[in-house]
């Protein structure tokens, strides 16, 4: 569990994070969204004790970062895959981290296997592609088998297999009761991964809620219906108060859910060929929510 309370961070006269309060629950993947410059990275750095908040504080599993005796065993973070000495091998990088957390050396080989870097373990990290660096960063985060995980743009540079792997990893971690906070700009990816969302803009909280709720609040839900008896169904639906639009070969119904439309169709003896609920996309919902909060609007 991560609890941020009244977090504020100023750099000179710019307020990067402004009185931000949120909770990241265990057992679910929480997506952390916001435009560039919204303060996501600053917030994550404050969670990990790297940046000092001007006011407010963050608790990880009920404690401040500075009170954690072996932080890596409580919270693992991947903020920047390039935070590795380029001349040090992947294995040595993990070795000193393991030592800092009083972990056995065998744990290093375990996580190297887990992220698929066993073969590259003795190469200098500077020779790694971005995708491999990302895997090394994930290995570092997983090393202490922590209850809380933070990932900043974890799929950056990964290929489709790697992306699918990270998604599954986060899912598994959350299903095991861990707290997983992941920031990303890839909304289609987040829609598949995140159960809950924390959305910020200009350093302030815009929304914290389940992903499904975030989407349904900001976008229109409709149902796509195909049938040979268009007019009969349309009349019945309009009578029930629905709005019906036409698409090539189909009707788009707003105002009744799929089950209600199915009942109406059955009651009027209408044969259905399709009855598909349609939700808006996370992208649509996000853009609507953050319209006012985008820091850099280009000309």
């Amino acid at each position, binding site marked *: 569990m991560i609890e941020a309370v009244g977090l504020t961070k100023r750099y000179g006269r710019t307020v990067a994070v402004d009185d931000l309060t949120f909770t990241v629950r265990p057992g679910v993947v929480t997506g952390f969204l916001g435009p560039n410059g919204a303060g996501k990275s600053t917030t994550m*750095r404050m969670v*990990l*004790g*790297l*940046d*000092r908040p001007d006011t407010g504080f963050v608790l990880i599993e009920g404690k401040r*970062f*500075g*009170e*954690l*005796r072996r*932080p*890596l065993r409580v*919270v693992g*973070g991947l*903020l*920047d895959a*390039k*935070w*590795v*000495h*380029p*001349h*040090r*091998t992947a294995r*040595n*990088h993990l*070795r*000193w*981290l393991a*030592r*800092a*957390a*009083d972990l056995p050396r065998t744990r290093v080989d375990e996580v190297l296997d887990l992220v698929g870097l066993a073969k590259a373990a003795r190469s200098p990290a500077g020779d790694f592609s971005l995708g491999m660096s990302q895997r090394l960063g994930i290995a*570092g985060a997983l090393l202490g088998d922590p209850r809380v995980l933070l990932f900043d743009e974890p799929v950056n540079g990964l290929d489709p297999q790697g992306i699918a792997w990270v998604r599954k990893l986060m899912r598994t971690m959350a299903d095991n009761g861990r707290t997983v906070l992941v920031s990303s700009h890839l909304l289609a990816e987040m829609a598949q991964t995140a159960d809950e969302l924390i959305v910020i803009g200009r350093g302030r909280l815009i929304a914290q809620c389940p992903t499904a709720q975030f989407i349904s609040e900001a976008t229109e839900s409709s149902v796509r219906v195909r049938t040979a008896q268009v007019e009969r169904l349309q009349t019945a639906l309009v009578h029930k108060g629905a709005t019906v639009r036409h698409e090539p070969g189909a009707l788009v119904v707003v105002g009744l859910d799929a089950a209600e439309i199915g009942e109406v169709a059955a009651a009027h003896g209408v044969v259905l060929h399709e009855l598909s609920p349609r939700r808006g996309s996370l992208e649509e919902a996000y853009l609507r929510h953050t319209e006012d909060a985008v820091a850099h609007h280009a000309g």
Partner: protein
Amino acid sequence: MTLLAVERIKLFSTRAPVWCIATALVLTIGVTAGLTMLDHAGEGPTPSSTQTMYILGLTVIMVMATLSVTTEYRFGTMRATFQAVSSRSRALLAKATVLAIVAGLVGEVSSFGSWGVAKLIAHSPDTDIHTAAEWRQIAGMGLVYAIAAVLAVAVGALLRQSAAAVAILLVFPLLVEQLVEIIPRVGDRLHDWMPFVAASQFASTADRGLPYGPWGGLAYFAAIAAALLVAALAVVEKRDA
């Protein structure tokens, strides 16, 4: 102990420190050997005169020590360290300790090495160690190196930039401390209280008319290093990583 092991692994899992140590030793001992050979005609070297090149190795070791901090900032591993160790002070103290130990050992190897190689070349009884001052000078060299390493770590932590830290550590002892003497009236007095001048009082046996003795000089040098380290700890604790 854990943190010392962490810093030891970090230090020796890249090649640069090993090269620095080798360079420091080869430079100090090699130049001493060369000078001894060139000096064939004259009297044999005294134990004291075999130690004059210590500043070469010391400079290289200070560069190594300061880079061990600044490269961590440059490559972001300092942040990785702070994620792994919640007390930044303890992490930095561990680093300073490990570097002090390594530098101390290098100092001992280089001082006894320089003396030994000179003795081998000159075959002169003059080179034998007789006085307590000579023992202090040679066996105590490790202390000078160790303190200098702590000072360099502190400077690196304060500045975070490799170029700036290295420039200061090269320019200050080799140039600034000498140029201070030019300042009218106070120059001489100021020069006496320069940290590396104080250290050199300990690292030599000559009487240079300084207002303190060898141990006083070492204590003063250590006090400066400690002050810088305290400042570095305070800044690192407070500053965003």
